[in-house]
């Protein structure tokens, strides 16, 4: 348990110090080093902690304390859960965070010291929140950290706050994920109402014992799934992720590729033992996953911003994972989560390196960078191969497992679509590689290789992306060390699965090579040929527009209706009442005309009134 606490405390201490000591924050570099030290401690501790789980020799451990005592209902306990899943995930998060923070030291070097301090404060905060999320032992605490990583994301996306787009993107990210979190919160409520607990272990036990009504379980899980969809940018909540690329690139690597966006999948893997009790929901998750994977990949085809290509790719890959969860292959999903973290973080970091060199995100402004930046190019290639799923990179193994589990789950159509998506994936990443690294013209500016602080993390990740497939045997061991170990049956996937997958990937790569390197055909012509489809893709299936419309019409419209109603009707009545009183008072005052005999009428009238009261009834 102590390593887990150390894991959490490292970044927390760094954040607290940087946050509470303005001079430290304003100094910039010391703050950065402090943050790196914190995350390094966390990485070390979590690494040590994870090893036994990878070897399959550790049992789950929990630590909890009373957080909110309640009467009339079970008190809320918070705590840490260390098991195969959380320990390995924590190690992953800490590792990548460490690499990214080191990388940022060089990448963000041109920022003003105060800005840099702020950046590292956010980074430390995010690391703490993400680790907390991973190590949570109950749903509510997960939600707590879930929102906190959302905040970290918001802050980091909007890091360049003076750019209007950055502020806008940050808002969009926060709002969209929050929309899903409405479901998450309600889901927690529903589950709590049905099971009376937030804790995973108790929840699993109760559900397993049949103590929870099926409908409530489905409803609650559906809510939680909505939350996961928001966080993991599943269709139609994917809209925020491409825009989130307004943030600094290392942030994109850490948050919007490797860790936070994967939290949704992580959560689904975590609750997978419950999901099996809600088969309809499983199907829905599968459908969403496949759809997301495919649509996002298609959108990546027409994107020219390198980071957005990668962002769509992330969405697509998360779709793969979701599909795996939906088809019952939580292990496959988690495996892909790990490998994806390696290669996608790597891709983003290399993209950052490119952008750093070129000063632009636009693929078409890059070219022949491989010559000037060999390390970067090599790393990019490694990442691209892993993403495309070429043997023997990490991506190959994990994607293969997903495809196998999908097929085993009895979704042949989905399987086909995913294979197709794999092809598209290979094509767009190939396109990016050829445009940026090789190509026919030189990039603008004077490209140069990035400093060691940047290339070293890239190199580490590149290695991991290439050999990460070796983790495959560890996955069942990890799962055996969770609180609800699944009955793993060594799946024997049909032999055609990896072959199909590899074929699709190779053909995708080949096609991109033909189009962008060999120039065998003009991609522009293709685009013109399929005009409406291309427009559809370029407009991102109009989902963003739909959100915009809802925001403008539904929210702002309703808002002004309510505002108007309040000012002129509700308050209008109040004002009208006072105004009437005012007028009546004035009229009465006018009747007091100073003529005493007119006033004496009142005496006579009063006399008559009293006499009537006395006698009349």
């Amino acid at each position, binding site marked *: 348990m102590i390593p887990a606490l150390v894991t959490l405390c490292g970044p927390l201490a760094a954040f607290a110090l940087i946050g509470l000591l303005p001079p430290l924050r304003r100094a910039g570099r010391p703050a950065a080093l402090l943050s790196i030290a914190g995350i390094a401690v966390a990485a070390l501790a979590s690494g040590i902690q994870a090893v036994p789980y990878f070897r399959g020799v550790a049992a789950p451990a929990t630590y909890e304390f009373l957080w909110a005592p309640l009467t009339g209902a079970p008190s809320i306990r918070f705590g840490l859960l260390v098991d195969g899943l959380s320990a390995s995930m924590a190690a992953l998060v800490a590792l990548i965070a460490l690499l990214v923070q080191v990388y940022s030291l060089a990448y963000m070097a041109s920022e003003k010291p105060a800005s840099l301090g702020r950046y590292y404060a956010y980074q430390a905060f995010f690391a703490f929140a993400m680790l907390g999320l991973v190590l949570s032992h109950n749903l509510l605490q997960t939600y707590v950290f879930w929102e906190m990583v959302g905040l970290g994301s918001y802050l980091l996306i909007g890091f360049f706050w003076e750019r209007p787009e950055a502020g806008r993107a940050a808002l969009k990210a926060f709002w969209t994920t929050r929309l899903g979190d409405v479901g998450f919160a309600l889901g927690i409520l529903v589950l709590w109402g049905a099971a009376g607990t937030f804790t995973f272990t108790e929840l699993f036990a109760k559900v397993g014992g049949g103590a929870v009504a099926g409908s409530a379980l489905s409803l609650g899980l559906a809510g939680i799934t909505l939350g996961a969809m928001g966080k993991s940018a599943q269709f139609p909540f994917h809209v925020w992720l491409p825009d989130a690329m307004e943030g600094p690139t290392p942030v994109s690597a850490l948050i919007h590729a490797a860790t936070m966006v994967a939290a949704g999948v992580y959560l689904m893997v975590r609750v997978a033992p419950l999901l099996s009790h809600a088969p309809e929901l499983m199907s829905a998750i599968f459908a969403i996953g496949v759809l997301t994977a495919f649509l996002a990949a298609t959108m990546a085809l027409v994107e020219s911003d390198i980071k957005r290509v990668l962002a769509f790719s992330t969405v697509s890959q998360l779709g793969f994972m979701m599909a795996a969860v939906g088809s019952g292959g939580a292990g496959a999903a988690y495996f892909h989560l790990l490998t994806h973290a390696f290669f996608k973080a790597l891709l983003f970091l290399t993209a950052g390196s490119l952008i750093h060199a070129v000063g632009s995100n636009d693929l078409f402004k890059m070219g022949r960078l491989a010559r000037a930046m060999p390390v970067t190019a090599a790393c990019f290639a490694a990442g691209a191969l892993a993403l495309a799923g070429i043997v023997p990179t990490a991506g190959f193994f994990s994607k293969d497992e997903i495809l196998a589990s999908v097929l085993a789950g009895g979704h042949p159509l989905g399987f086909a679509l995913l294979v197709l998506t794999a092809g598209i994936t290979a094509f767009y990443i190939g396109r990016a590689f050829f445009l940026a690294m090789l190509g026919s013209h030189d990039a603008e500016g004077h490209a140069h290789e990035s400093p060691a602080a940047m290339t070293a993390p890239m190199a580490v990740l590149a290695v991991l992306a290439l050999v990460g497939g070796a983790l495959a045997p560890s996955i069942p061991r990890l799962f055996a060390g969770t609180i609800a170990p699944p009955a793993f049956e060594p799946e024997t996937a049909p032999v055609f699965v990896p072959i199909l997958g590899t074929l699709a990937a190779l053909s995708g790569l080949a096609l991109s090579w033909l189009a962008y390197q060999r120039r065998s055909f003009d991609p522009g012509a293709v685009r013109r040929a399929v005009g409406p489809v291309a427009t559809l893709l370029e407009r991102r299936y109009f989902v963003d527009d739909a959100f915009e419309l809802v925001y403008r019409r539904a929210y702002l419209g309703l808002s002004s209706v309510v505002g108007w109603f309040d000012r002129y009707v509700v308050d209008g009545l109040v004002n009208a009442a006072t105004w009437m009183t005012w007028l009546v008072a004035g009229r009465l005052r006018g009747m007091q005309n*100073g003529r005493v*005999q007119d006033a004496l009428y009142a005496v006579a009238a009063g006399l008559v009134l009293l006499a009537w009261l006395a006698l009349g009834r």
Partner: protein
Amino acid sequence: MTAGALLLVAAAVFSIGLFGVLARRHAIGVLVSIELMFNAVNLAVAAIAWSRGLVAGVVLVLFGIAITVAEIAIGLALVLLAARVRKTSVLDDLDTLRG
């Protein structure tokens, strides 16, 4: 002749006096009307005393007369004052205090 009939006459005079108070333009006319009202009340008291055999009623009437005279004295003094200061005895002209 009954006390009831006398009361009715008194009531009529009282009402006539009240009419005068409400309708007379000149302040002294109003004072005259007030006298009528008091006189009507005195008459009513006397009628009641007569009916119930109540000597105290006579005392009441005497008091009433005394007080009426006192009132009229003050009232006339006020009217004269108004005539002196405001140069008018018409009540409707005394309407600077209003609202």
